[in-house]
């Protein structure tokens, strides 16, 4: 019983962490049709922001607040310098963002060395939960993820920015003809997506070793979740639950490597059977 409960919580924890990472990716892709291969490195920058803040004597909470701001600004600069030159050249956006990811990773190695850092986490106690004890910080991560999902829903369905963004997703040129500045919207969206990645990096940092390779490890499950779910918010939630659930279960019962293989095999089979993801086009809202 305990095992099942812990397993369920672990799976939920991982799934929500994936959603946290995937959200920025989905938003940027939905609006700009850009697959941001540098998303993992933006995540990385979020974690290192926290490292820097803690080294400078600032606390965890300050780092958590600064990370999305710093990484959002980085996103703004990247959009202006690079991304906007390759819009409408789909494969080139993948390559360009990928080149960015290499450069960021190297810059981090240059600044911080290849070794890993650990981050002091707050909330170092267990919470009694239906008879088992679960780390409070993991519950905190889940809370942040849920909050981010709600925030995104609110922004997209209850604000003018969200309406404009949805309009651009649905029909870019018509939205422009109605007077919506798609250029500014693109920039804001990329920055917003980057900020989410930065937040995710800072939130996840205490759970993992902060090193230059950490971005990739999270990027792939996020991508697989998006692919299996079919994109969009609901699709991503579904995909993340599948990926998170399968990965946690197999990792606990067998080994983490086997879990990755199984998740990947699942994703490939789903892609073969449902090329548009499990939700088909319907997930794209």
């Amino acid at each position, binding site marked *: 019983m305990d095992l099942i409960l812990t397993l369920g919580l672990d799976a939920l924890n991982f799934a929500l962490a994936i959603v946290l990472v995937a959200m920025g990716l989905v938003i940027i892709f939905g609006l700009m049709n850009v*697959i941001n291969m540098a998303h993992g490195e933006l995540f990385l920058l979020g974690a290192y922001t926290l490292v820097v803040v803690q080294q400078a004597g600032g606390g965890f909470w300050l780092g958590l607040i600064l990370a999305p701001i710093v990484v959002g600004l980085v996103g703004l600069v990247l959009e202006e310098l*690079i991304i906007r*030159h*390759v819009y409408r*050249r*789909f*494969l*080139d956006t*993948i*390559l*360009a963002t*990928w*080149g*960015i990811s*290499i*450069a960021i990773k*190297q*810059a981090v*190695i*240059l600044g911080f060395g290849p070794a890993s850092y650990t981050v002091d986490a707050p909330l170092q106690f267990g919470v009694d939960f239906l008879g088992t004890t679960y780390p409070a910080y993991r519950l905190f991560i889940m809370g942040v993820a849920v909050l981010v999902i709600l925030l995104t829903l609110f922004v997209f369905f209850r604000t003018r920015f969200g309406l404009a963004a949805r309009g651009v997703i649905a029909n870019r040129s018509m939205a422009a003809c109605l007077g919506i500045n798609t250029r500014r919207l693109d920039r804001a969206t990329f920055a917003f997506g980057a900020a989410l990645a930065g937040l995710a990096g800072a939130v996840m940092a205490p759970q993992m070793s902060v090193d230059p390779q950490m971005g*990739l490890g999270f990027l*792939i499950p996020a*991508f*697989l979740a998006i*692919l299996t779910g079919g994109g969009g918010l609901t699709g991503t939630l579904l995909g993340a639950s599948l990926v998170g659930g399968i990965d946690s279960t197999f990792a606990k019962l067998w*080994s983490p*490597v086997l879990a*990755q*293989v199984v998740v*990947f095999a699942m*994703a*490939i*089979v789903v*892609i*073969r*059977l449902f*090329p*548009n993801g499990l939700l088909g086009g319907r997930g794209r809202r």
Partner: protein
Amino acid sequence: MKRNALVLAAIVWIGFALLPLVVDDWQLLQLAQFMTYGVFAMSLALIWGQAGLLCFGQAIFFGGGAYAMSLVTMGLIPGLPASSWLGLIAAMVLPALFANLLGRFLFYGRGLRGAHFGIVTLAIAVIAERLAINWEFIGGFNGLMGVPPLNLGIGGDLIDGLPVYYAILAVAVIVFALLAAMLSTPFGLALNALRNHEDRAAFLGYDNARLKLAIFTIAAAVAGLSGALFVAQFAFASPTLLGFGLSTEVLIWTALGGKSLLIAAFLGAVVVRVAENFLSEILGPLWLLGLGALFVLCVIFFPRGLIAELLLRLERLLPGGRR
């Protein structure tokens, strides 16, 4: 293939053939290694430049070939004699089979286009590396050490610079010639149609999925061959040969060289590696940072590749070139 392009390619190969006149034995060994990377880059250019498939995990086939070669030539496969020829065959067949199987999942069923393909191959590269690290039969984290050198039945073990260099050069020229010949057949033309207008190609009656499957399989075999040649020189197969890092590098070489010209991709790999030899000691980690930045600039401003731009310009200068 156009006449001038052929003339240029011939000039390049003759240049490589003459290099031993000016460089020493040790440098020849290095260049031979870089040329195996060049063959590897051609395999990526084949699917990316010719069929528009952006593969982020091309090293899985390179590494697969390297491990196959190592296992066979080290005599670790029960019932198989330890032979370079058998190793080379295994190094081409195994990656090709894997690519074919994978392609059946990826290309059939309504389209899996650019991005999906890239992400899936990226995921495979990362997972393959982790699997190799955890698989004791192929040496786990430490890999396989003491892989014997090439022995093709003539001239004994190929160890010295000159024979190794010419053996690899011969393979590179043969691979190049076969691929170039293949691309000038109707199959190559169909690929071209596929790259430019996937929908229109389907409309014209090309079976896109089969085309992709065929080219993906062939490219995997070429990558496997290059991996086998590499490991026979390097004497050491490790999980990094399968993984994300090398996949990244080959993509950079190919993009900088030029994805749509096989010879440019080959040169891209060799030139970048030679430059890395000189510069990475001076620049340290700055080298990769600069390479990443150069890659981004190249994608934005010279999507055809730096060396390809140069070659295409030279091509026009040759007599009979189009202006």
